[in-house]
């Protein structure tokens, strides 16, 4: 059919104002378009990312539709032609309050000491509705569940309000399937199978459940106390590294506009906190590109020579949530991802060898802390293969949110801090290292270096717009001087699964695939300031990352002078023996096994 389909529209009245909307629009989204902010609790929509949770379960969003006997939940009720909707009649307000009172009657009242306090959707709703008492509270029964602590995430099901956002993230978006609504009625809760600990589930610790939880039911394991003690210990040299995505989001915790870059203030704050050396994970990202880029070119060379076992496409391995995901779901493909460690772990390995030697500090007297937008990094740092004689390469990984708490506790006026520079040598990075924080960034950084190494020519442009964007699965072909390099990109593990299914079936046309577990990449990580369902925040952070890249004097990893120096003084060549020993890893089969008894 030629021409544009004309969209069928509907006219209706909400709170005495007329509006015309496309057929199929919900009352909630029509009202929001008019600036009428109907309160919601379970509903959550991330525009552009195709993520929406609307179980219609909590009934906070009920409205009165003229002619209907019952109140209607605005989040799942579609607009009807000529409908007259009212969002704040006494009946609606009463119902809303009653719903809230019921939810609160079975919710712990220990807000003062809850890790989510001050950042909790449920608390905000109680404030907004002005709840002052909960009728019948003295006789109300409270459901009680066991708390579950994993290396990254704490589940406190007593605080679960069954909004099921986490379940939607875990199952529909990430296709991890660790969490499900279980039991019924009063005992209903979201939990792993057999109500076991997350540790015994296929959880990847991506933290997207934590990122969307409206209450304190899902929170991160807090390591700030450990970091504080390490800093206070005079026998320890404490080295900190900060991931690229942190600088694009930390400002939000201090009231700054989303997308405000706070790199200089971040460095100042870390120095104020008392870290001995403030370094940049971006340096290790440049190092990752040297190793992963070299691996890509080696495998590609074999592949072009007709070697069918060359393991093409190569998959990126920077994202620990993604690594956990393929270990659980695609163990048969565990030779396909790059063996390069993630930047966090490369940093740890180099800090506790090269740098420790340089400053003459023994490994056991050095503490490496990482500031990450991520919760899976906590688990990653605790993997036994990333330690030497029980001493981990990265001692503690704390999230952007934890760092913000830490800064506040230390009485630091973050907004008025001067800018400071990272220390040398592990603080120098290129624009390629910075863009690791965005979906598409790792592969763009790899392309910048691989192109120049493969073709021997200088790139005429460094911005690969074809690799950028928020589309869940993207593909692009980059002309490597006559050789078309096919690149696939997925963010969100459900999207990664689609690309992996193709690889498994032998149908993938890609030479290299980048995967990041979180929607948007690390900028949307499970450890970032909460977005409360506003996806424009993620886009603002992504823009900030590209801006930082643009402003860097050097934008390709292999030109980082400190990287060149590191290879010259210490590592030798990329992928050579020493580099391989320190900077590469191996993967495990973690799929649940059915063993047949004979």
């Amino acid at each position, binding site marked *: 059919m030629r021409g544009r389909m004309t969209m069928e529209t509907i006219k209706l009245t909400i709170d005495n104002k007329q509006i015309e909307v496309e057929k199929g629009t919900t009352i909630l989204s029509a009202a929001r378009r008019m600036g009428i902010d109907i309160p919601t609790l379970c509903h959550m929509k991330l525009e552009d990312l195709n993520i929406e949770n609307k179980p219609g379960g909590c009934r906070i969003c009920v409205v009165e539709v003229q002619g209907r006997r019952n109140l209607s939940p605005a989040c799942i009720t579609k607009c009807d032609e000529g409908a007259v909707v009212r969002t704040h009649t006494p009946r609606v307000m009463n119902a809303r309050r009653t719903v809230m009172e019921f939810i609160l009657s079975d919710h712990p009242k220990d807000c003062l000491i809850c890790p989510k306090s001050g950042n909790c959707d449920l608390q905000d709703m109680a404030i907004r509705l002005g709840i002052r008492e909960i009728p019948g509270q003295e006789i109300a029964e409270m459901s009680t569940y066991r708390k579950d602590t994993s290396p990254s995430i704490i589940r406190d099901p007593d605080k679960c309000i069954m909004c099921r956002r986490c379940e939607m993230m875990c199952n529909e978006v990430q296709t991890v*399937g660790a969490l*499900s609504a279980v*039991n019924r009625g009063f005992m209903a809760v979201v939990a792993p*199978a057999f109500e076991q600990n997350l540790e015994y589930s296929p959880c990847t610790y991506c933290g997207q459940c934590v990122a969307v939880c409206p209450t304190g039911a899902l929170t991160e394991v807090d390591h700030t106390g450990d970091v504080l003690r390490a800093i206070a210990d005079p026998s320890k040299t404490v080295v900190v590294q900060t991931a690229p995505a942190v600088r694009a989001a930390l400002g939000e915790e201090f009231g700054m506009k989303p997308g405000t870059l706070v790199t200089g203030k971040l460095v100042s704050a870390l120095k104020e906190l008392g870290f001995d050396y403030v370094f940049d994970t971006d340096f290790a990202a440049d190092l990752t590109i040297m190793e992963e880029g070299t691996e890509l070119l080696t495998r590609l060379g074999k592949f072009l020579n007709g070697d069918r076992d060359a393991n093409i496409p190569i998959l990126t391995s920077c994202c620990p949530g993604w690594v956990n995901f393929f270990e659980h779901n695609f163990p048969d493909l565990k030779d396909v991802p790059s063996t390069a460690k993630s930047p966090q772990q490369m940093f740890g390995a180099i800090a506790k060898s090269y740098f420790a030697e340089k400053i003459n500090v023994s490994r056991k007297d050095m503490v490496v802390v990482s500031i990450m937008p991520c919760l899976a990094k906590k688990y990653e740092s605790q993997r036994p293969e990333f330690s030497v004689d029980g001493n981990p390469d990265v001692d503690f990984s704390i999230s952007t949110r934890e760092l913000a708490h830490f800064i506040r506790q230390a009485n630091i006026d973050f907004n008025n801090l001067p800018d400071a520079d990272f220390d040398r040598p592990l603080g120098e990075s290129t624009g390629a290292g910075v863009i690791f924080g965005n979906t598409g960034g790792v592969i763009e950084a790899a392309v910048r270096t691989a192109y120049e190494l493969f073709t021997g020519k200088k790139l005429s442009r460094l911005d690969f717009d074809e690799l950028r964007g928020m589309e869940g699965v993207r593909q692009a072909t980059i002309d490597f001087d006559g050789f078309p390099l096919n690149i696939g990109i997925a963010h969100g593990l459900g999207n990664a699964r689609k690309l992996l299914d193709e690889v498994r079936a032998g149908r993938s046309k890609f030479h290299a695939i980048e995967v990041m577990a979180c929607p948007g990449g690390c900028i949307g990580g499970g450890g970032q300031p909460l977005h409360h369902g506003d996806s424009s925040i993620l886009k603002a952070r992504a823009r900030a990352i590209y801006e930082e890249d643009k402003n860097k004097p050097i934008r390709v990893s292999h030109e980082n002078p400190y990287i060149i120096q590191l290879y010259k003084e210490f590592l030798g060549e990329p992928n050579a023996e020493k580099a391989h020993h320190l900077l590469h890893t191996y993967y495990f089969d973690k799929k649940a*096994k*059915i063993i047949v008894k004979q």
Partner: protein
Amino acid sequence: MSSIKIELRKEDVDKINEICDSFDNEPLELINILHKTQEHFGYLPAEIQEATASKLNIPVAQVYGVVTFYSFFTMTPRGRHPISICMGTACYVRGAEKVLDEFKKELAIQVGQTTADGKFSLSSLRCVGACGLAPVVLIGEKTYGRVAPDDVQDILKEYQ
């Protein structure tokens, strides 16, 4: 973390696979598959849920969610004569709770438990659609209507 290992006998795995195959391994048929599986095994322990999830290629958390949602499904073996007492509104107001208490006393077990000899198990359910016979008790396939606490001993004698 090491990978989870589930041990099952070969004939049990074969049976689970056979049931799943008979529904074309369609995840949307999960409830029907679990019905058949429980009919065969008598109950749905964790191992069987894991094997079913693995065959259907769905998360085991989802299977567990369904098993714990429907009171029909059970993770503990039922007795040879499963007793269900209707606690729906009509039965409840006509004294079902007293009948249930009597069963508990006579059998010395709680709801959800099975007698040591494996003969009886006790469960409650919500409305069997026979409100005119309230209070209703089901033992296996047999229905007892207008049950009074005094009837309980006689009913149990039928299964001696």
